[in-house]
């Protein structure tokens, strides 16, 4: 029983770190540019596929293909910002949201045109899980795949890098100021255009990374990013919009909750929530949050 809970929590942390990487970007763009970016999931997809091409076509090692995925997603985001969003910034924020919904479909259909509608994997075959911790948590111990370890390490490194960037660089401070209060930030002479570019670089870079991780954990599919968008939004709202640190916590909570929802108590009973309804768990948490505390868990704290 305890082993099951710990195992699912571990899987939840893996899923949660992927969601968190996405949610940081959504939270930043929402806070700084003022709209919920519905194309964020598809930015993830684009990063995953670009890394896939570099990995398989150029036969580069995955750790080299991975930054290509991040760069690719950045390029896609900046291109979309240039082509569409930058021309709409004077209109109301909601028009940008509608535009991003259209951009989501544009990216997804491009992915489908270039890479086809079928599933792809980075590495064919099933990876053997490693067992560990039998002496601490009891038999049969916990299982984790080497890829999942890579995801956890990668996410930790990226989150630390973002933390350093937001905390200690001038641009990071400017971004936090914009997310906190855009008008006040403008008044202090912050160069909004540069901040916007950096927002996309950070947000889409993390999205590209999250896309590669998601592809590594499951498989690549043109809809992969769209389907994870709802948990990402849930994590963003949970953490409080414009709060990148809140988004990390929100991502982990949503990821763990989704995995734990399939817990079977006692072990051979039906799972708590039918796995088919797993995405609904994120939604339920989000709705609860919207009722109880719509500003998010971390709204009171300025990070």
């Amino acid at each position, binding site marked *: 029983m305890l082993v099951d809970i710990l195992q699912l929590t571990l899987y939840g942390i893996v899923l949660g770190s992927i969601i968190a990487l996405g949610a940081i970007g959504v939270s930043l763009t*929402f806070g700084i540019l003022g*709209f*919920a970016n*519905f194309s964020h999931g598809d930015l993830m997809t684009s990063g995953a596929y670009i890394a896939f091409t570099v990995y398989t076509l150029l036969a580069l090692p995955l750790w080299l293909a991975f930054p290509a995925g991040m760069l690719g997603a950045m390029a896609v985001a900046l291109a979309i910002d240039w*082509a*569409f969003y930058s*021309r*709409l910034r004077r*209109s109301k*924020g*909601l*028009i940008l*949201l*509608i*535009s991003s*919904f*259209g*951009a989501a*479909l*544009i990216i*997804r*259909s*491009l992915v*489908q*045109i270039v890479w*086809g*509608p079928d599933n792809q994997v980075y590495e064919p075959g099933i990876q053997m899980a490693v067992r560990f911790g039998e002496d601490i948590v009891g038999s049969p111990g916990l299982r984790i795949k080497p890829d999942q370890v890579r995801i956890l390490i990668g996410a930790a490194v990226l989150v630390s890098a973002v933390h350093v960037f937001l905390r200690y660089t001038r641009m990071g401070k400017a971004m936090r100021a914009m997310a906190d209060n855009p008008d006040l930030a403008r008044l202090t002479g912050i160069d909004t255009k540069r901040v916007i570019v950096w927002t996309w670089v950070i947000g889409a870079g993390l999205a590209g990374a999250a896309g590669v991780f998601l592809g590594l954990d499951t498989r690549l599919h043109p809809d992969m990013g769209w389907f994870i*968008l*709802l948990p990402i*939004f*849930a994590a963003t*709202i949970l953490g409080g919009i414009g709060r990148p640190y809140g988004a990390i916590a929100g991502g982990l909570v949503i990821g763990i909750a989704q995995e734990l929802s399939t817990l079977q108590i006692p072990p051979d009973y039906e799972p708590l929530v*039918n796995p*088919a*309804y797993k*995405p*609904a768990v994120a*939604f339920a948490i*989000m*709705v609860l949050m*919207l*009722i109880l505390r*719509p500003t998010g868990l971390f709204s009171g704290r300025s990070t």
Partner: protein
Amino acid sequence: MELAGLISYLIFFLTFVGIYGLLALGLNSQWGYTGMLNLGIAAFFAVGAYTTAIVTTAPTDLHAGGLDLPFPIGMAAAMVTSGLLALGIGLITVNLRADYLAIASIGIAEIVRLVLKNATEVTNGVRGLPSIPRPLTDLWPGYGEALYLLIVLLLVVVVYLASERAYRAPWGRVLRAIREREPAARAMGKNATLFRLQAFVFGASIMGLGGAAYAHFVGFISPEAFDPLFATFLVWVMLIVGGSGNNRGALIGAAVVWLIWTLTETAVQQLPENMVTQAAALRTLLIGLFLQAVLILRPRGILPERPPTEVAPPAK
């Protein structure tokens, strides 16, 4: 023969324009009048279609219902269930920023999709609901489709007149006030929450009616038909292209965009056969680019909103 084919194609085309026109009118009262961003049109559309199917099909073991009731009852039930769904989601989100409503509404659409796929006892899952009766087919054999087109057009006219009346009424004026400047509307003593909720439920039940009209037309529904692309995105493109806030614009948008959508289908059929899956994506790409172009170049649409003016315009 050629002419008969053309006429039957035209009937098919116009019926779809009518169904999408209903969806666009529903969205107009939410987005156009009130500024509420509903990205979960698919949910209300699907709930309406499934409700009428369950109410009007002959008794069956495949799915719940099979009540064999006449189609007006099915349509009324469709409006009620989709309205109730909107009431539930609206109570939670109408008072939050519009972005939250947008997020919550795609959530609802996703959950409805999951339920349709997995609650097999009720919906027959991915296999879908067959043999939904088309009304009046026995009345004039061979011309069932034409008669059904008349029913759809009648629904469109009724909904159009009702929406137009609502828009010009004090009710619509309050909605516009809330959209433009909510604090001012509240300061005038208007209960913005209640008005928003009413507009959201009103629009959603029209979408439910559109779903019912669709179900009786195609006769078979499955979760696939309520893909966000067809059921949500196209409707948004129609309203934006036609002119948000303008009911005639919504209908013109439905016709124009459905025409373009149909033409792109013909166009991509010219592509070689091994590109069939790519062709579908190409159509989506084109309609997505079209939306962006309209948003940038003509954001107010073909027929921009024209609120009634109380005072005569000043003479030149």
